[in-house]
């Protein structure tokens, strides 16, 4: 058994801030070291949840795409949304999930733009659901050190 990743990063961060940075000169390097420690802390926070939040978000976006089926969308967009909605995440590496997430969020922009031009309760309801998912996406990404 080896030390857990989170424990290692947490310990290194603490030592950088409390023991090493105060003894570094000039001030610019000490500041850079502090920022690097802050980055390690954020990376530590992200490491634990990285795959989970990406899988959750990708699934949530696919669900929105599936709900767009009955709307009067441009045919090529509708076909792409149907295709994207039917492709689950099988590669759980973070880089693969990020690549898929980028593809899904790109299509989400197209869908929301198209919805803004549509009338009717179904379009409005889906637009509202997209906003809710976008808010949820920022909650998933929140970092403890962030100001908001």
């Amino acid at each position: 058994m080896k030390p857990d990743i989170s424990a290692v990063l947490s310990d290194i961060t603490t030592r950088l801030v409390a023991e090493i940075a105060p003894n570094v000169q000039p001030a610019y390097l000490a500041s850079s070291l502090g920022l690097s420690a802050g980055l390690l802390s954020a990376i530590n926070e992200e490491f634990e949840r990285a795959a989970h939040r990406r899988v959750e978000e990708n699934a949530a976006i696919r669900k929105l795409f599936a709900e767009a089926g009955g709307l009067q969308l441009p045919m090529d967009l509708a076909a792409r949304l149907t295709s994207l909605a039917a492709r689950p995440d099988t590669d759980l590496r973070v880089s693969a999930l990020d690549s898929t997430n980028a593809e899904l969020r790109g299509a989400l922009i197209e869908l929301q733009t198209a919805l803004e031009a549509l009338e009717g309760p179904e379009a409005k309801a889906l637009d509202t659901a997209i906003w809710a998912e976008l808010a949820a996406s920022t909650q998933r990404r929140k970092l403890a050190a962030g100001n908001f």
Partner: protein
Amino acid sequence: MPQSLETQLAAYIATRLPDARDVVVSGLARISGGASRETYRFRLGYRGGDGQAVEERLILRRDPPSSLIDTQRRVEFAAYAAFHGSAVPVPKMLWLEEDASHLGHPFFVAEEIAGFEAGPMLLQTEPYLACLPTLAERKWTILGEISRADPDTLDLMGAFERIAPDACWKRELDYWEGVIDEDEQAPQPIIRAAIRWLRANPPPPAQKVGMVHGDYRTGNFLYDTEGGIHGILDWEMAHLGDPLEDLGWSLNRIWCWAKDDRRGGLVSRETAIAIWERASGLKADPAALHWWELFNCVKGQGIWISSAKAWIDGANRDPILAYSAWLMLNAQDRAALELMGRL
């Protein structure tokens, strides 16, 4: 053997002080001075024409290989120089050098305002907590003075593009949307929705075209323990435009360093606006200010996206570029959502 930066700087300054002898630069040390320029503190020593020894504490601001913000050195120099000696405290500018042959990149030299702090987080600790309302009064009063200034009476060295009151919003939105188009590493659905709304709901023409600092926030001024402000820094994004742009940026949620509703980590949004209105003599029309606050989320995202790209490309590996992307991108999205009533 290449000359040290101290030697190169001393040689340059000697050309700017023809009566000086024995020009020496010492104690040159890089300090934290924003991510868009390399900032150094140094001591300049020389003998004047009368033989008297002179020593001064100065600042060197030099362009880095790649910056978080792409701006012209002349703009920043001219903005500082325009306000020196006014109600807006700024360091005195000495020399602007746009010829990269002297120090490898364009730069300027200014007097140092020494003995004060700039870090935003420090304000959330003792002994500063008691002076936050006083500091806020100064902060937004000075911003009001910037907004109140008449660009036609300032010597702007020809560095600033003139603009009509009804064109301010579009120029800024076009620019920052272009930055995002060019630099984004992944789609940005929240900020793209904000851009669509901003274009569909343009603000009224600016009530005046004024000097816009461009990055007026807690973290870009020098303060003391009594709530005094002794220098407004980081004018590299200064331009002529709608004064509400600066007010909106100063109110942005991402600068809530106390992690509560106090803007700039200092006072409520309403208090900050009231101080600014009193000092500037201008009105913060709620609908117009809302537009500029949301626009500033687009601008902020442009900055964080650019900083991420500069780091990813390897053009600049300063940790501040990676850190700001990690910490600010999501907070900026949340700020935009809140302003759109979607959080």
